[in-house]
């Protein structure tokens, strides 16, 4: 018995208890399934809609500031889905006593997320209040769901919970400024939100990295252990937080440029953990994929720092796409791929599809981010980078949807 329990605590077995609800369809059998089934098409759909909005074919007025709402949705709208997948899949694993969220309850939460998206796109008709209430409720529910993390006596993963609370406060602040309750500039608030989200991703990536890389090495019988060292992540979080706070108050100050360069270097420093003592693992596909998340974040902050030092405001906003479309986009994609394999009872596999998914995100990021260097081709680059960015999610639908729509192949529930 004790042996069995020990085995169940192992990372790939996920939970101690599974709810005994009857007739749960496969797509509601575990938290990540409905989210990924919706998120991949939503990325494609929303990029298409934005393309039509930007090129003027479709007129969605978005109150008065299309750019502001574009940023809002790409940050907060997508974030809640990503965080939900991460928490509902990861928490029962980190805290084995926790009951996974499945079936009807999962369905209601998904409906709340969908309602949030619909209310967003119809914001001009339904009003800011409805969007605010639906989206804030979604994030508040996620924090409620993650309360065990914060209340945990050992505080092992509490930083995730605290960061979520900060992100919630920033979202409230954003809506307050849109509704005129706060004097702050809502674009500046969105930049603060980006900083908080990068911190959250860095914290989450430390856990994803540990699980994915060690699982991979176990699979390939590489006899070594990968440890993502907290001091490196903490240094990066410190630098990014400093950048975000100073950037809010002094967005063009030269000291901010240096802090941005420091943030870039500190994020790239995280990758030095991939250098194991005995074995070389940087030739393993998943390690390369994950490596690129940090490289894109690092390049983004570094190039932004450079632009601030040389007073190039245009560069700053273009290079920010290394962080958003690049780092965040690839982080979401990697979470989708990794969970898509492991938690449907499969081995973490790399193939031509996964290679292409990562390649296209990186390619799209460079195309979008480097527009300041190729101004004469900017129209083509806008279009092609958007297409290249969407392709991975098309491939995701092709490869992973059948996994998400069928039960786990190893017979375990979930």
């Amino acid at each position: 018995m004790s042996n069995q329990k020990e085995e169940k605590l192992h990372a790939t077995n996920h939970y101690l208890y599974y709810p005994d609800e009857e007739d749960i369809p496969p797509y509601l059998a575990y938290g990540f399934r409905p989210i990924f089934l919706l998120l991949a098409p939503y990325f494609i759909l929303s990029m298409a809609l934005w393309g039509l909005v930007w090129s003027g074919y479709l007129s969605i007025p978005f109150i008065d500031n299309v750019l502001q709402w574009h940023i809002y949705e790409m940050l907060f709208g997508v974030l809640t889905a990503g965080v939900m997948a991460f928490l509902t899949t990861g928490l029962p694993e980190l805290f084995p006593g926790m009951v996974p969220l499945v079936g009807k309850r999962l369905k209601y939460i998904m409906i709340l997320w969908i309602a949030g998206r619909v209310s967003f796109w119809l914001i001009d008709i339904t009003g800011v209040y409805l969007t605010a209430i639906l989206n804030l409720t979604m994030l508040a529910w996620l924090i409620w769901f993650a309360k065990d993390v914060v209340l945990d006596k050992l505080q092992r993963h509490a930083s995730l919970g605290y960061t979520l609370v900060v992100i919630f406060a920033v979202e409230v602040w954003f809506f307050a400024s849109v509704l005129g309750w706060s004097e702050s500039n809502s674009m500046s608030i969105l930049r603060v939100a980006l900083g908080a989200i990068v911190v959250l991703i860095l914290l989450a990536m430390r856990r994803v990295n540990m699980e994915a890389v060690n699982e991979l090495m176990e699979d390939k019988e590489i006899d070594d252990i990968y440890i993502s060292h907290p001091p490196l992540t903490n240094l990066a979080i410190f630098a990014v937080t400093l950048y975000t706070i100073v950037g809010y108050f002094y967005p063009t100050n030269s000291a901010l440029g240096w802090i941005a360069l420091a943030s870039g270097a500190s994020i790239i420093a995280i990758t030095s953990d991939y250098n194991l003592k005995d074995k070389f693992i940087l030739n393993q596909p998943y390690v390369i994929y994950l490596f690129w998340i940090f490289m894109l974040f690092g390049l983004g902050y570094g190039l932004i720092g450079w632009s601030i030092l040389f007073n190039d405001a245009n560069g700053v906003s273009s290079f920010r796409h290394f962080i958003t479309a690049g780092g965040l986009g690839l982080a979401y994609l990697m979470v989708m791929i990794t969970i898509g394999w492991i938690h449907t009872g499969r081995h973490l596999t790399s193939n031509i599809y996964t290679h292409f998914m990562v390649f296209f995100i990186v390619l799209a990021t460079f195309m979008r981010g480097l527009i300041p260097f190729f101004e004469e081709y900017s129209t083509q680059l806008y279009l092609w980078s958007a297409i290249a960015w969407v392709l991975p999610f098309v491939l995701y639908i092709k490869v992973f949807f059948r996994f998400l729509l069928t039960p786990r192949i190893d017979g375990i529930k979930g």
Partner: protein
Amino acid sequence: MKFFLKILKDFPAYLWSGWGAVASILLFIAFWDVGNQIYGNLVLPSPLETFKTLYAMLHSKDILEQIDITLYRASVGFGLSLLFGSVLGLIAGFFATASMMSRPIVTILVGMPPIAWIVLAMIWFGMGDETVIFTVVVASFPIIFVGALQGTRTLDGELKEMADSFAFPWHMKFIDVYFPHIFSYIFPAWVSGLGMAWKIVIMAELLATSDGMGAELAIARSQLDTPTALALVTIMIGSLMFIEYIILEPIKREVELWRV
């Protein structure tokens, strides 16, 4: 040979692990920039301006000549201390009497402020290369001497006995038993001796010569040319960091691997 290949093989990973250090240096530069914004350009020029000055300096032939002069003095001084410090220290370490005797003398040498040595050297040798080189030797010799002395003093007697009982040939005894131990003491001493030499050479030049980087620094001071002064400081720190972290540290890591 195998040893150097291993250092080369580990070098890229070692270099990549430096990003964290780069980040903290950049944060320090941000702090410097804030200082510039508070106190103004005359007191503390901005990092960007300093680096621009530095860039211009590195493209001027005159400055490169001065760097050359300073490098010559530092390397001759350090080379002499390295040679005599290591040899004399090793010998002293083998004889208890010699090490007992040398202790207080080393204390005197270390305790005497370098600035006092410079004054004496200026009287003895006049204003020129010899003064600077002498000061460098006097400052870094004791450090290396003590390192070498400690290395031989602390040799493990049991290891020696073991080597004897296995009847190792003398060269094997030296390379595999004594050398790693002594080297792990003497090498860090070389590194600190080098750091000392590089600092002292600038100070001696500033006071005692009319050429070299120290003299350039004196000129920058008299003209209140803070960007040039800071650019010179950047060259000094940059070159020291290059030697210490790019060249010496990888060797040190490899040498001290047996300790863990």
